[in-house]
């Protein structure tokens, strides 16, 4: 019976919508904020490498700014991800994505690594992980949202 109704649903999805309605809080969670912060980490890492070896005062000044921004944005990304993890994701989501805990752990660990080091390879892995979280998040909402990056 379930096979039959599933088939009907797949072939002829119901057109009428019934809203499990939410005015506000539904839009509160969005992995985009973690992605934007992580992209700043990627960008600052590249800028630091480009500036390596320069000793004029402006360069030293810029270098310290890049470091500060990298540190700050990595922390913001980490906070955003941990908020998604603890506030948004529910046990049923974990059943859907058993790898959820591991992915969160690896992503936040990578963010710590990106703070401690100037490691382009790690920032690449970081963006892959952020994309994985993005995909899981939107899959739980039954939506296919494209992952955009600025750079």
């Amino acid at each position, binding site marked *: *019976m*379930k096979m*039959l*109704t*599933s*088939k*009907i*649903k*797949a072939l002829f*999805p*119901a*057109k*009428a*919508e*019934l*809203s*499990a*309605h*939410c*005015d*506000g*809080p*539904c839009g509160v969670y969005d992995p985009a904020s973690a992605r934007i912060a992580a992209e700043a980490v990627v960008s600052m890492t590249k800028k630091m490498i480009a500036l390596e070896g320069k000793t004029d005062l402006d360069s030293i000044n810029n270098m310290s700014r890049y470091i500060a921004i990298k540190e700050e944005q990595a922390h913001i990304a980490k906070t955003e991800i941990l908020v998604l993890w603890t*506030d948004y994701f*529910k*046990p*049923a989501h974990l059943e859907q994505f058993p790898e959820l805990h591991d992915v969160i752990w690896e992503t936040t660990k990578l963010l710590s690594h990106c703070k401690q080091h100037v490691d382009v390879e790690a920032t690449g892995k970081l963006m892959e992980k952020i994309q994985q979280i993005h995909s899981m998040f939107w899959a*739980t*909402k*039954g*939506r296919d949202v494209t992952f955009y990056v600025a750079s």
Partner: protein
Amino acid sequence: MRDSNLLDLLLWILRLRLRFRVTGASMFPLLQPGDEVLIDPRAFEKRPPQVGDVVMAQHPTQPGLKIVKRVTAVLPDDHYQISGDNPSASTDSRTFGPVSRQQILGLVTSRFG
């Protein structure tokens, strides 16, 4: 919530059940976005809504918006408190107050598919 059986399917074919696709997450984990349900629009001609019923209601301030919530209290004068199962992502009677019997449009009888 139970899955649709042959009788439900028959009632749907006879247009005694309405079929809807759920959007939004306020009834999570019972109903997830994309789930489909069957609704009996005449269920409350036989009996009044009661606590625990998952119902289709007319949003009190947004004309045309049909919402799915659970009846969580029966109030005086044929009014009902309706709530999402997922309170952190639900706009319900906490915001728009109780709904009247006329605003309750049907009972969710089964999951479809």
